[in-house]
């Protein structure tokens, strides 16, 4: 129904409105909502976030359908890569003191919490971990659709900490640039490092990861879907209308 018509036909709105309420309850809303109260760390709605990230990542200005072609890393491959990265992080920073992890919304979040788990197992230290949504810092606002933005939650002061940004796929580097900008609004970190599960090349900015799960040469037009469950390479094809 045309929303302008709804405005006039008050009664039909109310009817349609109630119907909507019922539907909304059954709907899986993809992105988390939070009030100012801090969101419980363990209730991130992992599956939903994965879906949301795929949505976001594949939301090129063109739109399309992701068709997987081949699996590049299995679940175990991803686990092994993360364990290696965890060791590298501890090695590079000579321990886990004043170390913190920040997962980039939304694909880096699950990886960051997995890394925290592994690091705390290795070093017996609790690593402060947060999430960062860089949507408001991107340079392609207006080129992509608005989604209800994801949660930014950095419940610790990053000043004088070593912050490891964690993301799933490093591609053009623009997300990381936005993340660096965003991070500077939260405080002055002693150093910022970058961990990614997949580096697929095609950088458009002078950004280099410190920790890499896998170097994956790709064609520019390909899409990479990297999660804890594995890494899949595929194509986005134009959606049938």
């Amino acid at each position, binding site marked *: 129904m045309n*929303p302008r018509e*709804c405005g006039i036909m008050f009664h039909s709105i109310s009817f349609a*409105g109630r119907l909507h309420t019922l539907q909304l309850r059954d709907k899986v809303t993809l992105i988390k909502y939070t*009030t100012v109260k801090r969101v419980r760390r363990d209730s991130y709605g992992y599956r939903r976030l994965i879906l949301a990230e795929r949505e976001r990542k594949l939301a090129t200005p063109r*739109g399309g359908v*992701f068709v*997987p072609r081949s699996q590049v890393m299995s679940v175990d491959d991803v686990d092994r890569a993360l364990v290696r990265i965890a060791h590298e992080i501890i090695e590079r920073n000579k321990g886990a003191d004043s170390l913190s992890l920040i997962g980039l919304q939304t694909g880096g979040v699950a990886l960051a919490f997995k890394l925290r788990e592994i690091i705390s197992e290795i070093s017996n230290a609790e690593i402060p971990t947060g999430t960062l949504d860089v949507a408001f810092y991107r340079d392609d606002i207006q080129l992509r659709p608005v989604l*209800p933005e994801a949660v930014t939650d950095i419940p610790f002061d990053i000043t004088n900490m070593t912050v490891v940004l964690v993301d799933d796929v490093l591609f053009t580097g623009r997300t990381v640039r936005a993340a660096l900008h965003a991070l500077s609004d939260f405080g002055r970190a002693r150093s910022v490092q970058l961990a990614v599960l997949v580096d697929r090349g095609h950088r458009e900015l002078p950004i280099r990861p410190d920790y890499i799960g896998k170097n994956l040469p790709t064609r520019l037009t390909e899409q990479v879907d990297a999660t804890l469950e594995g890494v899949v390479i595929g194509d986005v*094809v134009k959606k049938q209308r």
Partner: protein
Amino acid sequence: MSPLRNGLLSVGDLDLDGIGNIMKLSAVFSEVLGRDIPKVPALRGKTMAMVFSEDSTRTRTSFEIAAKKLSMDILSLNSSQSSIKKGESLKDTLANLHAIGADCFVIRHSSAGVPAQASTWLPVPIVNAGDGCHEHPTQALLDCYTLIKELNDSGDSADDDQILKCFNGLAVTIVGDVEHSRVARSLVKMLDMLGAVTTLCGPKTLMPKYVDKWPVRVRYRLDEVLPETQVCYVLRLQNERGSGIYLSSMREYAMNWGIDHRRDALLPDNAVIMHPGPVNRGVELASDIADSTRSLILDQASNGVAVRMAVIYMLLANSGDVTFDKGAFDKGNLVSMRYADRETNEQV
């Protein structure tokens, strides 16, 4: 996702998904506002023109702060200082501001329908910041957001996916001058969409003639409805209404429809009081009740910034009319967005 294509002129421009998304985005911006540096570069380089031909403190500053927190530039116009005073027509003023480089307009006007008219003149989004006795949609949105925060906090555990659920069956009583209230018109529409049960209460002279066709109950005696009220939304009584045509006197209004201590006691313990401001202390609301713990008046004001950031951001950061195709997930395909408006020749 966003139905806000031409701007936000009326609550009727929104559907439930739209309201839900604005609420979620408002929560995100609330977090931004809590940061040490509560400002994001999202809309830098964009210019927001504010055309206010009526006095306003809250709405004007709230929009201004919201735009600044989004790193926008602001073109502010007061009818008293502008060429409207010199006899330039509103259309010419707006067209010139657009030519100068405004990317969106926030319009308040004493005549109903001006933002709707402006949206036919200008190819940029228009936000209605209150037009005559018609609507004030961002006020209704911020009231809605304030209630979500209040109700979900005091409840056990709010399911984040169902943020609008708290409105189901919520008993809201709107007290006062409904006839001349744009806030009431927006709020009634929105509460109806959200499934709340709205009661209007006030002297019959201040009720619209055809209010019986609105999706509300109407009561004329306040004491009867207060015990079953969860949200008591008090409207401002403009002084000129107390001049003897609509009401016999301000005193009589305060005695019969003002929220004083006796009426405050009639409200259930967990009921809240809201007011769009500015408050006539001692007329529609007793002074210490306006400052009491059940009053959400200041929350409303502070939430207004986040809600207006969300609205502006949705209007200006969007690239097109986008909808999710959720069914495609079940088929094992990962689906991006479907652009309803945009056709592209690019090969993907």
